[in-house]
C-alpha cells in the first residue's frame, strides 16, 4: 500500500517544529524583538496561497468571488513581508559592538 502524501507533509511539519525548537533556543535574548518581527515576516509566506487564490479566476474574469479574497490577502501579506523584513533590518542595523577606538 502506498503512503499517503499527507504523511510526508506531516513528517516535514513535525521535524520542522523540532528544528524551530532548537534554533529558537539558540537565539540570544537581546534579539527577541527582531526574532518576532522576522518570524512575522516569514509567516507571510502565506502570500503563496493568496497568489494562487487571486489567479484562480476563470478566463477573462479577474475578480471572481474567490479571487477577491486572494487579492485582499495579497495586500495584507505584502504589508507584512515588506514591513516585517524592513523593520527587522532597521532594528538589526542598530545593534553595535563597543567601539574600541576611544
Amino acid at each position: 500500500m502506498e503512503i499517503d502524501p499527507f504523511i510526508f507533509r506531516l513528517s516535514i511539519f513535525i521535524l520542522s517544529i523540532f528544528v524551530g525548537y532548537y534554533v529558537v533556543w539558540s537565539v540570544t535574548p537581546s534579539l527577541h524583538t527582531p526574532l518576532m518581527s522576522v518570524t512575522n515576516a516569514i509567516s507571510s509566506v502565506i502570500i503563496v496561497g493568496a497568489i494562487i487564490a487571486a489567479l484562480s479566476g476563470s478566463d477573462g474574469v479577474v475578480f471572481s468571488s474567490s479571487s477577491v479574497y486572494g487579492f485582499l490577502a495579497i495586500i495584507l501579506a505584502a504589508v507584512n513581508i515588506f514591513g516585517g523584513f524592513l523593520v527587522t533590518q532597521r532594528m538589526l542595523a542598530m545593534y553595535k559592538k563597543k567601539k574600541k577606538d576611544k
Partner: protein
Amino acid sequence: MSANLSAILYLVSGVLFILALRGLSSPETSRQGNLFGIIGMVIAVTVTFLSVGNFSSGFIYVLIFLAIGGSIGAFIAYRIPMTAMPELVAGFHSLVGLAAVFVAISAFINPAAFNLGVPGDIKLASLIEMAIGAAVGAITFSGSVIAFLKLQGIMSGAPITFKGQHLLNALLLISIVILTIYLCSTQSSNLFWILIAVSFLIGFLIIIPIGGADMPVVISMLNSYSGWAAAGIGFTLENTALIITGALVGSSGAILSYIMCKGMNRSFFNVILGGFGATDQTSGSQNKEQRPVKSGNADDAAFLMKNASSVIIVPGYGMAVAQAQHALREMVDTLKKNDIKVSYAIHPVAGRMPGHMNVLLAEANVPYDEVFELEEINNDFANADVAFVIGANDVTNPVAKTDPQSPIYGMPVLDVEKCKSVLFVKRSLSPGYAGIDNDLFYKENTLMLFADAKKMTEDITKNL
C-alpha cells in the same frame, strides 16, 4: 514549471527561513540571516508565479496589489518609532491571521483552483486543514487587534473580566470543534462562516481579560498562533515552504511565551486565564500605612553617581513611555568619561514584548556587549555602587524573594537592593501593575527621584 521542481524550490525557501532564524543567535550574523529570509521569500513568490503560469490581466493586478501592500509596509517600517515596536508586531500578527482567513475562504469557495475537489465535495482532509487554518487565523486576527488596541492605549490596559468568562470561552471552543465536525459531514458554507465568526469572537474574548503588563506573553502567544495558522493553510495548499515556516514560527512563539512566563514565575494558563491585577488588589491595599521614603533631586543623584566606580542601569517600560533611552545614553557617556563602569541589566519581562529594552538601547547606540540578561548580571549588584532604576518596578521588588504571601513571590527579580545605593526614577509612589508596594522604595539605601524619566536623566547629566 514542473510540480517536483517547484516543490524542491519551496523546500529551499523553507531552509532559508530556518537559516534566517539561525542567524539571530548573534548580532553579527543576524543581518545575514535577515537577507536569507528575504531571498527565501523572493524564491517562494517567484516559484508561485511560475507554477501558476497565468500571466493574464490577473497577474498585473497581483503585482499592483503587491506593490500597494509593499509600499504601505515599507512606509510603516521606516516611520515607526522603536518604542512602538510592540504595537507594530501585534498589528502585523493580525494581518497574518486575516490573510490566513482570506486564503481559507477563497479555497473553500473555489477549491478547484487549489486541486482540492469541487465546491460541496471538498476532500475531507483538506476541509479539516482549511477549517483549522481559518479558525486559528481568525483567533490570531481578533486577538492581535485587541492586543494592538491595548498597547496603543486606545483600549484600557486593565484586564476586563466578567462572570462566566471561562465557561463561555470553553463553550465557544467546544462549539468550534462541533462546527468543524458538522462542516466536514455537510460541506455547508453557512457552517464555515459561522465557524469563522465564532473564532473571531474567541480571539476577542481570550485577550480582553489580560492586563497590560502581561502583554509580552500575549504577543508571543499570538506570534505562535499566526505560525500554526500558516501551517494549517500550508497543509491545505500542500506547500512545504508554508508548512516549514508555520512550524518554525509556531514553535518560536511558543518558546518565547514560555520564557516570558518563566520570567514572571507564572504558568501559561495563569496568564491566559487572566486578571492578575484584578485578583490581587486586596493585598496591595491592606498595608497602606505610610512608610518613610527618602527622595532626592538630580543634584543628589549626580553626586552619588560621580562618586561611584560602577553603575548598573535597570531600564523598564517607563523608559519606553518617556522615550528616555537617548537621554539615558548621554548620561552614561558622561559617566564613562569620568571612568565609571556602566552596564545595563535587563529583566526578561521588562517592557511590553520580549527584547523590548534591548532594541531601545540599541537604538540609542548602546553597544550590545554592555547589556546583560538577568542571570548574567545579578551577582554584580552586590559589588556595584549605584543601581539606577529607570522605569522598572515589579522586576526589582525584593518581596518576590522574601514574602511567600506576595502575588509575585518566586518571580526572578534583579537584586537591586544589594547595591550600595539605589536611585529609583519614578513619577510617583504608586505601585506597579501587580498592584503591590515595592519594598525597595523604603530601603535605607534607596533614593527616590520623583520625575519624568527623560527629564530627570537630562537633569542628572547637566549636574554631572
